[in-house]
């Protein structure tokens, strides 16, 4: 039988190989799933892994979806590395979108291009505010940040619904629950014509580089992580756990809010009840599959974006249910959690009854 044996030291190889093995397992399980559903597995896999990269336009779309995922995951990585379990990035994303949308609605035909900066700032502040609520409740009342941040997702959804069904509904919108389409001047600048990729991608990449510097080259980043890895050591060193809590939540809230602003002032262009696309939850998977490392999260954001696009294609072309995207995301996360066992343990084949030499007598 196989036996799990603790490694004397965590395996470097498996730290990097585990996400790849998890991806391979996800694909195998996916193939089994497609066969069980009576679909051609080759064609289905094509939808997920070939269609999203086969043309320049497709690649652009891949980046459009990867951008918010990466931004949110970067913020979450700060939280998770500090042992602050912010599960509510989705809510911070929505409130960021609402605040950005509120500013965008104010823009008229003759507003200057500067309004884009205000929109982005509003998004960031909105996300920070929403995450700040969690930080405040945790700091003042020691409320679990997991529950509070998760519950606030639903509150955020309600806030959005109230606004688009109520005061912010477009009077000329045939009673659809949506705001007016924002003026063109509010549009986040695109990088090139013929693609929806915006400067948001550059912001996300810059944020990834910034996070790397913060985590690995500054004492503030070091202190932030010590609090997560060994709280007693942080206390001994004199690193404030309250500061770590606030920094973590405000950073991730700001990042999620920024992603929300880039979405509503970018591809969406108005507020609708469909702004929440579960990016905030998917980003949790992005963060862990990417090993909470900025470069790793860049790759996993692209992967997760493929699942989003592949899921949509599988829905429209193969008639697979919409939930297939979620199934894939969940499979990947669970496979990763399972494969991560190999980082700290190794598999060894042992004979069914280990030969304790007592039998010699």
């Amino acid at each position, binding site marked *: 039988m196989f036996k799990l044996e603790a490694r004397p030291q965590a395996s470097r190889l498996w730290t990097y190989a585990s996400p790849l093995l998890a991806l391979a397992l996800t694909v195998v399980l996916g193939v089994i799933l497609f066969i069980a559903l009576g679909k051609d597995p080759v064609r289905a896999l094509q939808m997920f892994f070939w269609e999203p990269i086969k043309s320049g336009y497709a690649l652009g779309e891949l980046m459009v979806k990867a951008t918010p995922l990466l931004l949110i995951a970067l913020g979450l990585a700060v939280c998770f590395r500090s042992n602050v379990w912010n599960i509510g990035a989705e809510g911070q994303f929505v409130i960021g979108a609402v605040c950005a949308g509120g500013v965008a609605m104010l823009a008229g035909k003759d507003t200057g291009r500067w309004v884009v900066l205000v929109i982005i700032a509003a998004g960031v502040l909105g996300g920070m505010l929403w995450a700040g609520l969690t930080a405040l409740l945790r700091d003042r009342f020691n409320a679990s940040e997991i529950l509070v941040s998760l519950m606030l997702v639903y509150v955020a959804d309600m806030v959005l619904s109230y606004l688009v069904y109520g005061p912010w509904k477009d009077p000329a919108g045939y009673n659809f629950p949506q705001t007016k389409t924002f003026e063109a001047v509010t549009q986040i600048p695109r990088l090139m014509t013929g693609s929806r990729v915006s400067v948001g991608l550059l912001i996300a990449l810059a944020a990834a580089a910034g996070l790397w510097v913060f985590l690995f*080259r500054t*004492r503030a980043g070091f202190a932030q992580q010590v609090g997560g890895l060994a709280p007693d050591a942080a206390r*001994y060193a004199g690193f404030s756990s309250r500061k770590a809590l606030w920094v973590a939540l405000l950073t991730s809230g700001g990042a999620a809010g920024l992603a929300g602003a880039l979405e509503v002032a970018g591809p969406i262009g108005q507020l609708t009840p469909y702004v929440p696309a579960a990016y905030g939850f998917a980003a949790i998977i992005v963060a862990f599959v990417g090993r909470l490392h900025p470069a790793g999260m860049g790759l996993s954001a692209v992967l997760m974006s493929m699942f989003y696009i592949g899921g949509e294609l599988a829905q429209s072309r193969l008639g697979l249910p919409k939930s297939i995207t979620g199934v894939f995301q969940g499979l990947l996360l669970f496979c990763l959690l399972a494969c991560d066992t190999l980082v700290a343990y190794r598999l060894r084949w042992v004979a069914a009854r280990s030969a304790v030499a007592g039998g010699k007598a």
Partner: protein
Amino acid sequence: MDFASDLFSSSFAPDMTTPLLSLQGITKRYPGVVANQDVSLTVMPGQAHAVLGENGAGKSTLMKIIYGSVKPDEGQVVFNGQSVQIRNPQEARKLGISMVFQHFSLFDTLTVAENVWLGLDKSLSLAEVTERILAKASEYGLDLEPDRPVHTLSVGEMQRVEIIRALLTEPKLLILDEPTSVLTPQAVEKLFVVLHKLVSQGCSILYISHKLHEIRALCSACTVLRGGKLTGVCDPREETNASLSRLMIGAEPPALAPTPRTPGDVVLSVKGLQLDKQDPFGVDLQGIDLQVRSGEVVGLAGVSGNGQRELMWALSGEDTRSPAAAITLLGQSAGQLPPRARRSLGLHFVPEERLGRGAVPSMSLAHNLLLTRSEALGTGGWIRMGALADQARSIIERFKVKASGPDAAARSLSGGNLQKFIVGREISAAPKLLIVSQPTWGVDVGAAAQIRAEILALRDAGCAVLVVSEELEELFEISDRLHVIAKGRLSPSLPRAEATVALIGEWMSGLWPAAKAEMAQGAQHVQA
């Protein structure tokens, strides 16, 4: 400290030639380390047999093999003349083997009787168990109240619960793993009376320790392990300390020659520190008065759990609830300063927990420097990686830390080497006041001697040092003055020359004359 040797004559080994327990060629490998290699051990009926060795010598693994909680890779176990395979502790207990672990396995919220009941035959009622506990307790002169909740017991009493629990199974062989590490000298004496009685009744004892005088007082045979291998079997009563430590560590530890000095100015002064406990099982600090001067080592003796942890938190700044004026550091009120502010005043602290408090287990040695050192930081807290690695390398070299380099994760080091690194990190910061908690806990003899020598060198350089330790011998060796902490109160100071094991032991139970306390305090001021 051979207080029990006079009792030894009363013990005798029954005249039997079949060994009760015999281990032959036991080998146990763990990934990356061989815990036991071809170890043999023979225990005669009614024999108190010592297993001697440093930390990490493989004593505990060997005991766990006997007790059935670890399976050996090779070798055989013969009990009462029969080859046996002990698969789990239940089987061990059925054979008549009982074990008292170093770390107690008691539930704090249950009573003594309930705790004992948990480990016994389920057919007994609680009342019957209580009766049996009382019977056993009076038989061996162990006083114990079965109805008391365990969290109200002292450490010595908790150990008595463990021993009673073991005795109720009527063992033929009782294994004791470092039983005296948490006891006052008086409690050790009581324990030895019980053990001698057991031996005289024909029960065999396996006694694990690294304290030579105890082994000599109790045991008539001794098996010595070093690095997982058998290095000798002897009669400890016929060996000298030097010959036993040679077997144990391969060489005698270098003797320290302390040079007495006149202490300088007061560096740390604690006046009337009063602090309520933070966790329910903690200790309230009451009226702590303490002074540490430059160029002296002040030792703080006491059984663990008497307020040492709480006092260390208050002194290091991990607990800032003290009144500002209660703690003075180099003339500054420091009671409410956070750790970093105290560090910049010159206070450096080595906590007793190395992994998780003194160092982040998963981080490299170099990064662990950043917990308390900031020399490698540039403007804005930028980490200069090259300088950081160089700094770590120089500490590794100077303090002879065995590590693969500055990138080695803290948890990959052995306890002794990590302690050397942490002590080195704090000492090389050139502190004005060094506080060290349990400097040589779980550290092998060679590293312990090195750490003590470094502490003395620092004192000779004019640093004020406060050492908290459970090892009286260690405190006697390096301290200039001693205090004893008991139940959250601090005894008056005692010059080392006047300290005896008996006196300190008495004070460890909180029995120092209060009037004498004031006198001694006054005398100390005059002296200075």
